[in-house]
């Protein structure tokens, strides 16, 4: 559980400010990279990699997933599995149809 002491909260504040600054910089990096003349595949990979880092920062620090209870990890692991199914099953079906 999150503490209420001023020292703990002050340390937390520093973490939030650092994450905020990182998110701002990464947003600008995303835009800068998009203006480079990368191939479509490379551009998609880089943009999604940066978005994943940003998303992880939000989830881990703002949503406190670092140091959360096991039950929440279990819920999210299940969700992640079905999310992958949701993304890749239609693609697999499409690839199968195109291949056949």
């Amino acid at each position: 559980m999150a503490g209420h002491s001023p020292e703990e909260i002050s340390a937390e504040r520093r973490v939030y400010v650092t994450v905020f600054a990182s998110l701002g910089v990464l947003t600008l990096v995303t835009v800068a990279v998009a203006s480079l003349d990368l191939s479509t595949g490379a551009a998609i990979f880089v943009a999604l990699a940066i978005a994943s880092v940003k998303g992880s920062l939000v989830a881990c620090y703002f949503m406190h997933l670092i140091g959360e209870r096991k039950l929440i990890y279990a819920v999210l692991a299940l969700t992640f599995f079905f999310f992958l199914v949701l993304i890749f099953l239609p693609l697999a079906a499409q690839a199968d149809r195109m291949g056949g």
Partner: protein
Amino acid sequence: MQIPYNEEPRPDTGLYNAKLGIWLFLASEVMLFGALFSSYILLRTGNPDWHQEELDVVLATINTLFLITSSVTVVFAWMALRLNDFAKFKLYLWLTMALAGAFLVVKYFEYSAEFEHHLYPSSNNFMATYFTMTGLHGIHILGGMVVFGYLLGPGAKMWKSEPERFTNRIEVAGLYWHFVDLVWIFLFPSLYLL
């Protein structure tokens, strides 16, 4: 009847009930937006003549910065409550509301410019996807504003009677808000940059 585990964690889950509740809700939201992302990928990869419209990257970047900042202000509002500073809590939550409002105003101008260029959901598959995804995301922003408005207005009374429970409500509302920010972090490059 008193609803149990509003403040103290439930022994078997280690969580107060609303926290488990919001995470289950967010899990369902992952599937909702996941279905739309999946459809977008399928439509795009399945169409060799896919046409991607040029959208306003500058406005979308500004909106990204608005949402990131609002994630910080909402977490600061929660911290202020843990320090018993209600005035600061209100300031930070109003700031969050203002940033959310600014996001929607920018989105309004973006949509208006697109309509002026005769770009509608019916124009092509990309615009249909764009309006569906950003529209659903915008509704989530609006939903967050309604919740924050309640917590700043009539809901704020709880701070006097049950401060711990009220603090938990702000944490839970914040978790939802960060999720809305997280979705935008993926929508932004997918729709505007790639």
